[in-house]
């Protein structure tokens, strides 16, 4: 399983690097084997940054990320390459994930050359076909084509097939369906759920609460780099405790009921720059004196943690 322990990503900003920007601020959670954990947040929440840190595409400033006990941040060279056999990622924009001048299936060739050079071409072609079928694609329709000749949904499945070729244990899915059409989104989502049944663990990064609710066992709600609330998805959605979570759920447009005019939606622009204390305080209708200090994560019931003074004071 993958474990994040007090992970932070701090950027130096300002003219001489005097100021600090905490894109991710002391976040901890776990993704057990065979489970999907949703990382929910809006833009600026740090969710993509966490995904990239797990994928070792950007460095980890503080804290540790461990895969089955091995410190991911310390891997180098061939160890890092081995890591990529177990952990892979798929990103939001299907078209920019491919080098536009090459055919789409070149990505399989690269995997062969880097990870399975001893496998002969024929056997490899069979493996590729199997992986494509597992990804819900018909090999005849999608091989030997350029990215522009395929649809967004097909391209995303292609990338999932690539990850399957490596026989990975963990997948970081960063907003992978947000750029797809509604009619194909659900199919890719169902694919992820099917793969989960085969033992794959998935970090499902999204801003869309209904998707998170559909597919994940656990959810982590992020706001500006800090965890607001986390735990078992059902518990969070049935009884959201953090004011931010409540606001999110109240503001999400639903098909089964209209917006509750009782609940006001605060739209003040949150101040940029470093914040001492609770990051949500500036927008929070319940903010009070205590919020000048950063609230710790407290377990309010088994499988449900909240970081809010108002909630934990009770």
């Amino acid at each position, binding site marked *: 399983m993958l474990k994040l322990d007090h992970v932070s990503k701090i950027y130096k900003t300002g003219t001489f690097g005097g100021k600090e920007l905490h894109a991710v601020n002391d976040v901890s959670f776990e993704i057990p084997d065979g489970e999907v954990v949703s990382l929910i947040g809006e833009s600026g929440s740090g969710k993509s940054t966490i995904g990239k840190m797990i994928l070792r595409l950007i460095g980890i400033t503080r804290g540790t990320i461990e895969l089955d006990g091995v410190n991911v941040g310390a891997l180098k060279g061939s160890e890092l390459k081995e890591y990529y056999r177990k952990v892979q990622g798929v990103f939001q924009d299907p078209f920019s994930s*491919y080098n536009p001048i090459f055919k789409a299936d070149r990505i399989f060739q690269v995997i062969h050359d880097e990870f399975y050079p001893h496998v002969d071409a024929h056997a490899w072609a069979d493996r590729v076909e199997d992986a494509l079928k597992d990804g819900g694609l018909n090999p005849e329709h999608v091989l030997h*084509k350029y990215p522009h000749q395929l649809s967004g949904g097909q391209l995303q499945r292609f990338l999932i097939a690539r990850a399957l070729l490596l026989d990975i244990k963990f997948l970081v899915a960063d907003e992978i369906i947000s750029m797809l059409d509604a009619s194909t989104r659900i199919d890719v989502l169902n694919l992820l759920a099917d793969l989960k049944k085969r033992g794959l663990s998935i970090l499902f990064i999204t801003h869309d609460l209904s998707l998170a609710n559909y597919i994940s066992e656990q959810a982590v709600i992020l706001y500006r780099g800090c965890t607001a609330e986390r735990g078992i998805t059902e518990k969070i959605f049935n009884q959201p405790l953090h004011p931010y979570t409540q606001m999110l759920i109240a503001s999400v447009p639903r098909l089964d009921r209209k917006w509750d005019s009782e609940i006001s939606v605060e739209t003040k622009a949150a101040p940029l720059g470093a914040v001492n204390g609770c990051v949500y305080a500036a927008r929070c209708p319940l903010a009070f004196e205590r919020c000048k200090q950063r609230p710790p994560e407290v377990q309010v019931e088994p499988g449900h943690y909240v970081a809010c003074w108002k909630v934990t004071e009770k």
Partner: protein
Amino acid sequence: MKALKQKNEFLYFALRNRKLQIGLGVILFFVLLAAFGPLLTDYGPFDYVNPTGPVPPSSKYWLGTTFFGQDVFTQVVMGLRATFMIAVLGGGIATLTGMLLGFLAGYRGGMLDEIINALTNIVLVIPTMAVLLIIAAYLQVRSLWMESILIGLTSWPWAARAIRAQTFSLRTRDFVDMARMSGESSFKIIFSEIAPNMMSYLVMTFILQFGGAVLNAATLDFIGLGPTNAISLGLIMQYAMMWGALQFGMWWWFVPPGLAVTLIVGALYSMNVGLDEVFNPKLREM
């Protein structure tokens, strides 16, 4: 199939782009002149063929003769060869050096980027003329090779900067992240993922360096730092100036080489603008 269509699309626009057509046409003309010109003349560039000294263009001497009675046409045609050689070599060295340093700085970033940036700034700031004057003072014999190398080693900063900036922006693209997660080494990523995506940019960089080298060479030759054992367009102009072509109205001596340099460089820039339109769909006039 799509890349073929894409290449064909580029070809379609390339063949129809006015600026590219004109530029290419002019360059082709001069290249052919440089290649076959010497075959059209029986003289050598330094032969004293006209005992009466300078004469204007005539049917015998197509571009007239110099103060010393040398055939200007022969000189121009041979000079073209030298000019092109310097441009290819000098421009080539500049582009390759710029590519190497630009890719490294742009892709790796960090300390390497800082060091290469510092180096680039130093080379940019050094007054090229002063350096060349000093070198010229120590070298008794200057060859075309020397001139090419000197030009190449002093004009790469521009290319390095431009390539670094492009690499920087390409490096953040998702497909580069995918390549990293596929275990590709930095070297492989730069040359098989990033560089091919910048082909148009690299071609245009070379064209500009080519033109720049022609101008640089002409300038150096004109002020007397040119090769000591060859003839080039700039040298022709230098001799013309030294021997009073302006005062005595021997226009046929300095106008052809000057015109040639102007036309070549102008054509190269025209090609560059045209290529920009070809590669960047937004600039095309539909």
